[in-house]
């Protein structure tokens, strides 16, 4: 029977098939852990006298709470310090691999694992973090889980899960110059809504996906969760294999050949049935930015904050609930201090943040640096109040420095920080103040996400860089 990519990988991990609609018991190839969702799981394990079944299929990082400057000084915040101390002692007690603050492989959980070459096609990957969907870009089934499930995977290396329905999103056409993966996923979320993917594993396909680098693909899978789907998977290809090949945990010798043979079987068969299909033509796509307080509230950068009539028309066109959309629109207008019809390019910005598990990778930093280098050459100064550049992990930071990107950022006036989740969610000291407005390459523009009563506009790294030059939301060609 013809199967989807998701079904093939799922079937290869069934330990015990659920009967009469009960969930399947699924084997987990890799569990990623960090300091926030792991401590109570370890404690429960200890209290029950249980051990970690497969320390060799688990790895820990520190990212949500870690400082992104002065990292060798003592951590001032009591809760952050306690969480870091706890995860380190748990790693030691249970004999687990950890990359702590200051280690070159330390960083955001969804950046450091792919960088180490630990994510391969056809794997199952879990983590107590909803952005685990990132790793679907490799052709893996990767999803976020809760603390009890973290404990369950530590003890058994398995998880009870019901198979998901299948949705295919095809990005057809050729992506125009200056338009990026971030714009593609923001467009999708605005089209299907933040609940559009609920209950589905989304498979991303089409020419525009195939032409993306792994970094771009990860940006898209990463934000699958913002469209409501826990899994966002892509067919592995030469780009995927090339990315893995030179990394520390790439299979070697005969294992590489065997892996390649298996990986090349990982695609949706002709005739595989998808429960839902969405097609987006990217050939006319423009850079996308959010105006509101959920990731589905986005418009083209050349557009404006929508009017009531536009919200109603869009809800009708996309089959979204009109009343729900209108309520969210009203609330967001108030929170963001906007009147309908305000041009996005007239929105003044205080802080620019480039980083996070969505856009903290080397290609993102290069894209921003290319624009800021031109600004430096033209003698243009930073027009926002501050700009933070936060690489995804230590290796990305080192790579950027080897390419001289840090010098470009500093000359422009940006802060060159250490790796971590940072201002994406403000669990460390990197926050925006009440009323402060950010242009951010992260993934969530929820109320108070980046700091209490802060206002967030989600953008791509290119738009973030241009915005820092202009002081308001802008495209590179306007400022250079």
């Amino acid at each position, binding site marked *: 029977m013809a199967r989807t990519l998701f079904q093939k990988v799922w079937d290869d991990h069934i330990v015990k098939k659920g009967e009469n609609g009960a969930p399947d018991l699924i084997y987990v190839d890799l569990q990623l852990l960090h300091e926030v969702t792991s401590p109570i799981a370890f404690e429960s394990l200890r209290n029950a006298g249980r051990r970690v079944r497969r320390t060799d299929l688990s790895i820990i990082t520190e990212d949500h709470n870690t400082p992104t400057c002065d990292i060798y000084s003592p951590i001032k915040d009591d*809760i952050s310090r306690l969480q870091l101390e706890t995860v380190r002692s748990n790693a030691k007690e249970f004999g687990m691999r950890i990359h702590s603050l200051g280690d070159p492989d330390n960083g955001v959980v969804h950046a450091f694992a792919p960088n180490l070459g630990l994510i391969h096609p056809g794997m199952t990957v879990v983590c107590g973090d909803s952005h685990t969907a990132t790793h679907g870009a490799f052709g893996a089934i990767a999803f976020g889980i809760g603390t009890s499930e973290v404990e369950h995977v530590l003890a058994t290396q398995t998880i009870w899960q019901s198979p998901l329905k299948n949705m295919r999103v095809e990005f057809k056409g050729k992506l125009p110059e200056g338009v990026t993966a971030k714009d593609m996923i923001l467009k999708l979320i605005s089209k299907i809504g933040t609940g559009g993917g609920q209950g589905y594993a989304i498979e991303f396909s089409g020419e525009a996906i195939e032409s993306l680098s792994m970094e771009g693909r990860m940006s898209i899978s990463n934000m699958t969760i913002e469209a409501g789907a826990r899994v966002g998977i892509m067919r592995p290809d030469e780009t995927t294999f090339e990315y893995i090949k030179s990394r520390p945990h790439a299979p070697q010798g005969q294992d590489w050949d065997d892996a390649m043979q298996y990986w090349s079987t990982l695609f949706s068969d002709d005739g595989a049935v998808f429960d839902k299909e969405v097609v987006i033509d990217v050939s006319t796509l423009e850079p996308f930015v959010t105006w509101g307080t959920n990731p589905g509230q986005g418009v083209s950068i050349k557009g404006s904050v929508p009017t009531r009539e536009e919200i109603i028309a869009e809800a009708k066109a996309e089959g979204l609930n009109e009343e729900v959309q209108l309520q969210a629109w009203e609330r967001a207008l108030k929170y963001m201090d906007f009147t309908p019809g305000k041009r996005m390019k007239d929105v003044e910005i205080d802080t620019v943040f480039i980083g996070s598990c969505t856009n903290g990778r080397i290609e993102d930093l290069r894209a921003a640096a290319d624009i800021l280098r031109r600004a430096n050459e033209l003698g243009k100064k930073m027009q926002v109040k501050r700009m933070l550049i936060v690489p995804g992990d230590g290796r990305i930071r080192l790579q950027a420095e080897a390419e001289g990107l840090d010098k470009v950022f500093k000359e422009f006036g940006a802060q060159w920080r250490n790796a971590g989740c940072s201002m994406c969610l403000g669990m460390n000291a990197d926050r925006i*103040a009440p009323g402060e407005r950010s242009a951010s390459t992260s993934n969530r523009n929820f109320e108070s996400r980046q700091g209490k009563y802060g206002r967030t506009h989600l953008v791509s790294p290119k738009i973030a860089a241009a915005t820092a030059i202009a002081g308001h939301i802008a495209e590179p060609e306007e400022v250079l």
Partner: protein
Amino acid sequence: MQKIVVHEGIAAPLKRSNVDTDQIISALYMKAVTRGNGFGDYLFEYIRKNEPDFVLNLPEYQGASVLVAGPDFATGSSREHAVWALVDYGFRVILSSRFADIFRGNSGKQGLLTAQLEQHDIERIWEYLDNSADKSIVVDLEKQEVRFGDNVAPFQVDPYIRYRLLNGLDDIDITLQSEDLIKEFESKRPSFKPKTLPAKTSGDAKVESEHYDTRSPIDPSVGIM
């Protein structure tokens, strides 16, 4: 996980509906690194502090292990901390005419019985507790009934959760009943699947770190606005 077959204990009437998980425990405590015995103290913290006559503040209900709640108990966020707070406080059983789905699932995993009664039976129990000096009631999971004084009221419970509570089996225990299948699966995993140990990296390197003022430039204390 502790078994429940027949549980007898003090029952506290919680005469309000739509008690959400934020009321059960504030999101503030989600940063905790330990359950210890700590979450019990934060159960209904705001209500306990602000309403002296709240049921859990009354002397006759100290040591309660059964909560007799109004409809739509524990709606809202999926936080497991709500279940932990109830269990850590000492509750073994919650009675209500309607529970939020996620909460009911989370409770089953933590050994907390969520028994569903008709609303008029909940009100009979409330009345009994109001008028009786003895605040103890009996929850019989085998017979699926609540006994209070000379009265009996039946309850519904998910059969799978009932089986697990009667036998004291948690999720991990149940999974480990299939350990042979897990071992068999592991024996067939291909050798090209990655392992985190022994650790491989691109080698040692020193990561530099700069100093920055992390305060917001529009924080009034910095004086810009």
